[in-house]
Every structure is written in structure tokens, then in C-alpha cells.
């Protein structure tokens, strides 16, 4: 049962001399809701881009659903649904059209397309807005369209890079409930990042904390709290990553601090 769906080995990613992902190792088991947490610039999105075949690593290997991200790109892409940190909808198309093109790209048969799209739009509460242009949607509605689209081709593994960024409490609650539901009902493994640690603590079955491209700790929330002798995941997070505000790597002082560490 508990087979691994993600295997990351000694993953290394550099931008020039700057090491964004520094030899990280972790794995995700089928059925888990895996939280990938870390301060700004920790290397979360960079890691996700490599795991989703959009960026090439400088070293190490990544296996998704048993396929290598370099050798079996197509198989990896078929296995995953991705909701990126920044929006990736075509705003000049309607919600329906965005999902429609997606369904063709993922080889969903013509007979099933319409029903699947409408079911999913209904699932995220946007069926009555299906023919509206995405550019007229609010941030939360756009996010819901993206989630519907990410689920359209029944992925085995769903990536969500800060899915609730900029959303109100209602929409956030709605989304997390959805993610739980998808995980349970559709048996989809979930890999997400978030800066809202309370929410992450509630939903994640496994947590990894990364900082400066290195993984500091992996375990269940309970294990992490125990190890750090703290009462909440947020406290544990602060204890592990410190109170410094992260400045972009271009900033000289930050760079020096990083190397001094």
C-alpha cells in the first residue's frame, strides 16, 4: 500500500553561483497530503518546477509516479496536476474554454469532455459562470478555475504552490476542504506549499521544512512539535528558521549572511 509516489534524491539547483536547492532528499507516499514549508526564497517553487519537468536540475534525480523527470517527461506530466504560485490561466478565454483546451491537451476523449468540465466547474461552484471571461473573475474565482483545471485529467499527484495566497477566509476554508475531499475521494496525493502554518498543520499528514535550499526537518506535525519542544507548527517553524526577514538573493548583505551561516 504505502508506496512512494515522489522520490527526490540529492537534488541540486543553481542559478549562477547561487545554490537555490542544496542537495535535498525526501519522498512522498501515495495518499499523503505533504506540506512543503519554508520562508520566502527557501527554494520551494524552484523544487516544484523541477518536479514538474519545467526546469532542469544541476544534479540529483527526481522520480514521480515511478517515472524519471528527465527521461520520462511525458509520463510524469500525465501523472500530475499543477497549480502554480502565479496564475497560468488564459484570461482572454472563458472558464469553460480554459478547461476545454486543457482537456484536449491531456487527451480526454471528445465524448467525456463536456461532462467532465461541467462536473468540475460545478465542484468548485463556478458552473453558472462557465461562459464568463476569466479576466472578469476575482482572484479567488481564478484560483478555483485553476484547481478545477488541475483535476480535470484525474492526476495521481496534485501540486499546489501557495494555493490560498491572497484569498479571503471563506475561500481558503473552501479550498482546503476541497483539497481534503479530493485527497480522500479521488485518492489523489497532494503536495503543497503555504505560508499559513496553522492551515498547513491542520491539513497536512506530513510536513517538510526547507530553508536556504536545505531541508531542516521532515515528519508529521506532531513529530516536529515534539522534536522542537513547541506547541504549534508555527512556533516550530520559527524556532527552526529563525526570525530574520528574507531578502532577495541579489541583496549583498543577505548573501553574506547566507554564506556565513
Amino acid at each position: 500500500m504505502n508506496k512512494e509516489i515522489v522520490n527526490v534524491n540529492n537534488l541540486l539547483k543553481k542559478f549562477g553561483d547561487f545554490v537555490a536547492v542544496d542537495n535535498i532528499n525526501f519522498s512522498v507516499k501515495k495518499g499523503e497530503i505533504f506540506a512543503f514549508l519554508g520562508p520566502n526564497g527557501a527554494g520551494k517553487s524552484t523544487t516544484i518546477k523541477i518536479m514538474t519537468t519545467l526546469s532542469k536540475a544541476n544534479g540529483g534525480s527526481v522520480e514521480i509516479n515511478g517515472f524519471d523527470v528527465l527521461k520520462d517527461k511525458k509520463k510524469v506530466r500525465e501523472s500530475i496536476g499543477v497549480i502554480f504560485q502565479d496564475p497560468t490561466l488564459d484570461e482572454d478565454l472563458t472558464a469553460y474554454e480554459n478547461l476545454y483546451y486543457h482537456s484536449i491537451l491531456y487527451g480526454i476523449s471528445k465524448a467525456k469532455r463536456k461532462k467532465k468540465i461541467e462536473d468540475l466547474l460545478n465542484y468548485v461552484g463556478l458552473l453558472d459562470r462557465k461562459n464568463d471571461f476569466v479576466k472578469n473573475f476575482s482572484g479567488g474565482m481564478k484560483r478555483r478555475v485553476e484547481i478545477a483545471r488541475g483535476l480535470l485529467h484525474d492526476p495521481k499527484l496534485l501540486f499546489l504552490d501557495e494555493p490560498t495566497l491572497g484569498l479571503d477566509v471563506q475561500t481558503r476554508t473552501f479550498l482546503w476542504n476541497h483539497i481534503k475531499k479530493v485527497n480522500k475521494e479521488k485518492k489523489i496525493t497532494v503536495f503543497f506549499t503555504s505560508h499559513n502554518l496553522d492551515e498547513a498543520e491542520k491539513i497536512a499528514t506530513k510536513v517538510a521544512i526547507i530553508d536556504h535550499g536545505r531541508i531542516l526537518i521532515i515528519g508529521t506535525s506532531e513529530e516536529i512539535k515534539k522534536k522542537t519542544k513547541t506547541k504549534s507548527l508555527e512556533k516550530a517553524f520559527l524556532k527552526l528558521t529563525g526570525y530574520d526577514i528574507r531578502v532577495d538573493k541579489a541583496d549583498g548583505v543577505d548573501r553574506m549572511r547566507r554564506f556565513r551561516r
Partner: protein
Amino acid sequence: MDSALYVMWHRQIKEYFRNKQRLIVSLVQPLLFLIAFGFGLGNSFQSSGNFNYIQYLLPGIVGMTIMMSSTMGGMSLIWDKKFGFLKETLVAPVSRINLLFGRCLGNATTSVFQGLIVLFLGYFMGFRIFNWSMFPLIILCMFFIALLFNLLGTSLAAKFDDMQSFPSIMNFLMMPMMFLSGAFFSTNNFPKVLQFIVKINPFDYCVSLLRFVISGIETNLLLDFMVVGILILLLGFLGTRLFNRMEV
């Protein structure tokens, strides 16, 4: 038909016709050229030469319209990078070569449409297609030329991604190609150096090709086709490489 090819082709066409402002702008510019050159230059030419200038000029304007709209087709890739839709296509289980060609074929289709509008407008200025049985060939030639310049624009757009500088770079490339060619006037009286530049200017071969199929003006047909064909292959190869390496 391949799914990526179809999706990108369909989407580029849909968005072209949907955006009415862009649609109108794309048609007004060639109209202006047609009027300025047709009436302005045409009068002075007709007094000196004996050929019908509008028959000579119109294929040039068609070529220019296609070249301009096609190279600027690269802009849509830059937009897609900026607004994220590119990622959605790159993470899909489809090949990048089809994403590239679908995009270019879609843009090319809209460029051919613009070229046909120019032909149509020419009719009001006395222009006539010399042989209607050539019409399918006219479309085909327009399409190849549009594909060529779309591959150029999109390949460059894969490399550069600055919204502001891309149009200036494209204009910088296109202006000499346009004016150092036989698009608007004969280059027979150019100085030797300029004539050499015309010889290595791919756009000049495109215009000769169009001039033959549209107006029946003689050219080295085989050479023109070879230049266009080889450039499509080269740019297709280059564009595929750049697309494959693109990280977002």
C-alpha cells in the same frame, strides 16, 4: 491532428478575431501603406515607366503585411510568458515542437487573412489578380511566408522576454528587410553594395514569389521556393531547440 498543434492553432486564431481593437489596427496599417504608396509613389512611377505600378506594388504590400504581423506574432509568446499561460502548455504531456508549430500555424492563418484583405482592398485601386487559377497557390505562398516569419518572431521571443524591447528589436530587423528589397520599387538602380544586400535579404525572395503568383511577374521560381523552404527548416529547427530549452 496532434492535440497540441490543434489547441495552439485554434487558440491563436480565436484570440485574434476576438480582440476587435487589435483586429482593426492590424488591418489599418496595410491600408495606409497601400494608399500612401499606391497614390503617392504610383503617380510618379506611372509618369516615367510603362508597367502598371499597382500590379507591381500590391504583392509587396501583401508581403509586408504578412511579414509584419507574423514577426509580431512572437509578442503573443511573450504575453503568455508574462501572464503564465505558457506554463500551462509546457507542463502538459505534449511535445514542444507541436506547441511551437501550432502557435506559428495559428498566427500564420491570421496573417494570411490579413494578406487577403489587402488583396481585396487593392481591387478598389485598380489591381487585378492576373490568373484566378493561381489562387490556391497564392494562399499557399502567403502561408509559407507567414510561417517563416512566425518561426523567426517566436524563436526570438523564446529567447528574449522583455515586453518593451521586443517590438523595437523586431522593427529594427524588419525595416531594412522591407526597404532593401523590391517590395515597393525596383532595386535595379541600387548601388552595387545595396544590390548585394538585396540578394541576401530573404524578404526579397518572398516578395518575388508573391509577385509571380499574384501578378504574374517573372521570377526565378525554384530559387524563391528554395530560399523560403530552407529558411522554414532552419528556423523550425532553431525554434524547436530554443523551445526545448526554455525554462519558466
